[in-house]
């Protein structure tokens, strides 16, 4: 356990990227087939938040040569917001956490502008596209009480794929290069 907690950030971020990908694949499969994993699904949901928090913390270390130091604080806040959103969802699914995700997409989208050259362009664009879709969906909901029509629901798949590949594998690949 000590070794796990004390491993270098590069190793930690890479393992958490893989965990994040697995959690996403599970959730996409769950949503696609409609099966209910019960307690295991709750565990995966929590792990999704935990792994994403670790990826976010790692992201600062990956980009610190290109961004100001205060981004470290910003990353810590963002990681807390993501983890807390998941904790709230697990505790009480009726709690509306849309605003939490709006903040996350906002940071993900604008953060991607500052990380050019760190991620391969394909992962960067996938992340930006997913973040933009997420920003529109969540923003319309919380600020204007507007829900996009069901015909646009397939766009959620783009968010899912964008996250899984762009954020998950993009970070894994970027840490591999370092």
């Amino acid at each position, binding site marked *: 356990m000590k070794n796990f907690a004390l491993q270098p950030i590069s190793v930690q971020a890479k393992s958490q990227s893989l965990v994040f990908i697995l959690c996403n694949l599970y959730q996409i499969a769950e949503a696609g087939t409609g099966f209910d994993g019960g307690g295991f699904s709750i565990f995966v949901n929590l792990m999704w938040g935990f792994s994403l928090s670790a990826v976010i913390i790692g992201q600062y270390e990956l980009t610190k040569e290109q*961004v100001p130091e*205060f981004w470290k*604080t910003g990353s*810590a*806040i963002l990681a807390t917001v993501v983890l807390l959103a998941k904790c709230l969802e697990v505790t009480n699914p009726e709690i*509306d956490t*849309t605003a*939490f995700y709006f903040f996350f997409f906002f940071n993900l989208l604008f953060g991607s*502008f500052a990380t050019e050259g760190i991620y391969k362009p394909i992962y960067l664009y996938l992340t930006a596209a997913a973040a933009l879709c997420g920003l529109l969906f969540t923003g319309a909901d*919380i600020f204007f009480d507007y829900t996009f029509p069901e015909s646009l629901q397939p766009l959620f798949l783009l968010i899912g794929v964008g996250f899984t590949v762009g954020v998950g594998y993009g970070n894994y690949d970027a840490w591999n290069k370092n």
Partner: protein
Amino acid sequence: MKTFFTQPVGNLSRQNAIVFLTINIVFIAVEFSGITALDAIEDLLNFVWGFSLVSIIIAAYYLAEDHVPDYWRSAHTILATVIILGTFVEITDDLDGGFLPMYFFWAFNSLVYSLTLRGNGVFRPIYENLTIVGALFLTIGTSLTLFFSFEIPESFELVGFAGWSLLVIGFSLGNYFAWGDKSSSSTE
């Protein structure tokens, strides 16, 4: 866009101080005039309010880092997280009077921060004193309701409004000018 998010912390703080002041003026104007034209974007304005306040708080550590222990950085991170989460709670749930613990925590921390840095020359004295008086008002007002369930009488609401205004002006303009002073002294 890249340059906006990667600009020096001082510039970011100054811009957000102006945004924070402007949003507060808009809120006050809406409250007193009773106009409903901005109701549709109230949540959006609330988000910008929280975001600008968070930016100022993150930057405030760097403004004071020569005068405070290193662990204040973590404390600023915690305070900024509370503000952004409190803003989300306000946006999601229509809370009457707002999310009180967030205002208490912000006012109390602003009071401690300003008293600690008082006389160090980081902030101009006028804004330092405005922040202290405003934060004291807000700390007392919020803690009365929060800890003792005491409803402040309507006749005292004007006093609360005055305290809020002092804190907003002292905090936003204080940070704005402090960053200006810091950058001009470092280029001399």
